[in-house]
C-alpha cells in the first residue's frame, strides 16, 4: 500500500515536471516571452527592468529554472489587465468555479445514477429506452447551445430565473458562496444544470452498462437464490460492485467539469476561473494564462492521485496486485 502510494507520488511529480516543461516551451519558445511578459504599453526602462527581472537575457535552461522557482513561490507575474498577481486573481475566482462544478456534479449523480440503475435493471421497458435515447441526446447536444436555450426558455420567455452573474453571496470559510443566499441559489440553478447535462448522460450510461455487467454474475444469482429481498440485492450486491467504475468516472469528471465550466461560465457570465481564462486568452493576458494552466495541471494530478488511492481502497484485487 505504502509503496504503491509512493510510486504514484513519483509518477505525479513526473507529470507535473513534464507539464511545466511543455507550458514553458509553449510560452517561451513558441511564443515570444518578451511580448508575453511585458505589457505592450510599457516604456523602454520598464522593458529592460522586466527582461532583467525574468532573466530573459539568460540561456534557456536557466530561464526554465527561474520559471520553476517562480512557480514554487506562486509567482506568475502580474496580470496586464488587472495589474495584480495572476495567481491571486485565480484563487479569488476559484470558489465560484468550485461551487458551480460541485453543484453540477451533484445534479449529475442525483439524476444519472438512479436513472442508469433503472435502465439497467429493466432494459426492455419503454421508459428505459426513452432514458437511453435521452442520454444520446445529452451527449450530442453542444453544451453552449443548451445554455443559450435554457436562457431563452427560463429567463427570456418564462422570466423565472436570472441570466447572469452569481447574485448575492455570503461568506463561509473566508470565501464568497452563492448557494447560501436564496437569490444566489436561483442564479446557480441554470448554469449548474447546463454544466451537469453532459455528465448526467455519462453517469447514466456508465451505470447502466455496469448494472448489465454485474447482473448476470453468479453472486447476484446466488443472492437471489438465497431469497434475499430484491432491494438488498440491488443495494448491496449490485451497487457496491458498480462503485469502482462510477467513482473513477466521478472523480475524473469532476476535473473535466472544472475544465468545461469555461463554456458555461462564459454563457452565464459566472465570475469563475473559466471566464477569467477566456477573457485572458482574448486579451493575451499571458501571466494569468500560465497561472491557470499550471493550476489545472496541479488539480488534475491531485485528482488522479486521489482516484488511484480510492481505487486501492475500494477494490481489494488492486491492493493485492500491488503487493504481489
Amino acid at each position, binding site marked *: 500500500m505504502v509503496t504503491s502510494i509512493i510510486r504514484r507520488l513519483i509518477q505525479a511529480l513526473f507529470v507535473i515536471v513534464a507539464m511545466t516543461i511543455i507550458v514553458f516551451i509553449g510560452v517561451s519558445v*513558441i*511564443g515570444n516571452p518578451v511580448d508575453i511578459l511585458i505589457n505592450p504599453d510599457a516604456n523602454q526602462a520598464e522593458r529592460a527592468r522586466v527582461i532583467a527581472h525574468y532573466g530573459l537575457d539568460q540561456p534557456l535552461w536557466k530561464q526554465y529554472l527561474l520559471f520553476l522557482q517562480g512557480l514554487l513561490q506562486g509567482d506568475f507575474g502580474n496580470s496586464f489587465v488587472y495589474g495584480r498577481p495572476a495567481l491571486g486573481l485565480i484563487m479569488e475566482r476559484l470558489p465560484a468555479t468550485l461551487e458551480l462544478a460541485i453543484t453540477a456534479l451533484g445534479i449529475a449523480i442525483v439524476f444519472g445514477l438512479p436513472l442508469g440503475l433503472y435502465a439497467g435493471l429493466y432494459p426492455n421497458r419503454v421508459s428505459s429506452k426513452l432514458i437511453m435515447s435521452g442520454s444520446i441526446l445529452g451527449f450530442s447536444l453542444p453544451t453552449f*447551445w443548451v445554455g443559450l436555450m435554457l436562457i431563452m426558455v427560463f*429567463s427570456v420567455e418564462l422570466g423565472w430565473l436570472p441570466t447572469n452573474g452569481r447574485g448575492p453571496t455570503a461568506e463561509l470559510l473566508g470565501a464568497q458562496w452563492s448557494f447560501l443566499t436564496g437569490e444566489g441559489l436561483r442564479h446557480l440553478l441554470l448554469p449548474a444544470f447546463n454544466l451537469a447535462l453532459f455528465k448526467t448522460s455519462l453517469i447514466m450510461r456508465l451505470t447502466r452498462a455496469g448494472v448489465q455487467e454485474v447482473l448476470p454474475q453468479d453472486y447476484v444469482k446466488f443472492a437471489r437464490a438465497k431469497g434475499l429481498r430484491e432491494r438488498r440485492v440491488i443495494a448491496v450486491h449490485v451497487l457496491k460492485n458498480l462503485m469502482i467504475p462510477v467513482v473513477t468516472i466521478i472523480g475524473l469528471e469532476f476535473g*473535466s467539469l472544472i*475544465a468545461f465550466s*469555461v463554456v458555461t461560465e462564459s454563457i452565464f457570465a459566472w465570475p469563475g476561473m473559466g471566464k477569467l481564462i477566456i477573457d485572458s486568452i*482574448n486579451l493575451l493576458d499571458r501571466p494569468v494564462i500560465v497561472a491557470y494552466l499550471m493550476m489545472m495541471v496541479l488539480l488534475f494530478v491531485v485528482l488522479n492521485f486521489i482516484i488511484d488511492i480510492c481505487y486501492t481502497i475500494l477494490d481489494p484485487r488492486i491492493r493485492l496486485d500491488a503487493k504481489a
Partner: protein
Amino acid sequence: MAEPNAQDGGVPDAGPGRLAKGISDFFRSPAAAIGFVTLIVICCLALFAPWISPQNPYDLMQLDIMDGRLPPGSESMTGLVYHLGTDSQGRDILSGILYGLRTSLIVGVLSAFAAAIIGTTAGLFAAYMGKRTETVIMRLVDLQLSFPTILMALMMLAILGKGVTNVVIALIIAEWATYARTVRGTALVEREKEYIEAARMLRLPGWRILFKHLLPNCLAPVIVIATMQVARAIGLEATLSFLGLGASVTEPSLGMLISTGYQYLLTGLYWISFFPGIALLVTIVAINLVGDRLRDVLNPRNMS
C-alpha cells in the same frame, strides 16, 4: 457468435461477402439508416453550398446592413426571402448555416483524420517495437489522456493564438492519444496471432508486417473512434468558436453564428442562435448514430 453462413460449411466469408453482410447489418437498425441518410444530405448541402444558398454570407458586398436582424420569412428589398431570418450584419441565416456546415465538416473530418493517422502509427509502433519505444509513447498517451480534451485544446490555443487553423492543430494534438491507446491494445492482441508469426518466419521486412499485416487488422476500432471523433471535433470547434477562439466574424462557422446571436437572445431575437444550433445538433446526432451502429457492426465479437 455462431457462423451464420451455413452453405460454406462454416468457412468464414471472403472479403466482399463480409463487407456486404456488414452493410446489410448496418442498415438493419432504422436509427443508423436515418442517421446515415441525414449525414449524406448534410454533406451534400455543405458541398454544394455555393450553388444552393441564396446568398454568399462571406461576401460583405452581398450583405445589406439594413436587413439586419429580420425575423424568419422576411423579404429583402431585392425580393430575396430570408427563410430563417438574418443576423445583425444582415446575413441570411440559412446561407450562413450552409457555409458554416462546410467549415464544421472540414474541421471535423480533417482533425479526426490527421489525429487517426498520427495516433494509429504511434499505437502500432508502440505495440510492435515494445521496450523503450512503447514506454515513451504510452507515457505520453497517459499524460495526455489525464487531461480533458477541452483543456488540451485551450492550452494549445493559448500558446498558438486564435484562428480556425490553430483549432484544427489543437484538436489533433488533443485527440491523437485516444487512437494510440486503442490501436496499441488491439495490436498487442493481433501481434501474438499466427499470421504475424508466419510473416516473421518469411522474414518480411518490419514495415511490411506493420502496415500490411498488422494495420488492416487493427482498423475496425480506428474507424469507430474516428467517426465519433468527427462529431466531437465538430462540437469542440463550435464551442471554441463560440468562445471567440476559432472562426473569424467575417467567415462565421456554426459556433460563431450562435455566438453572434447570443447578445440578441435576451431581447427575444431567438433565430440567430437557434437555427445554427439545430443544424449543429442534427449533424452531431447523425454522426453519433452512424458511429454507434458501426461500433456494433464492427465489433470483432459480433464478426464471424
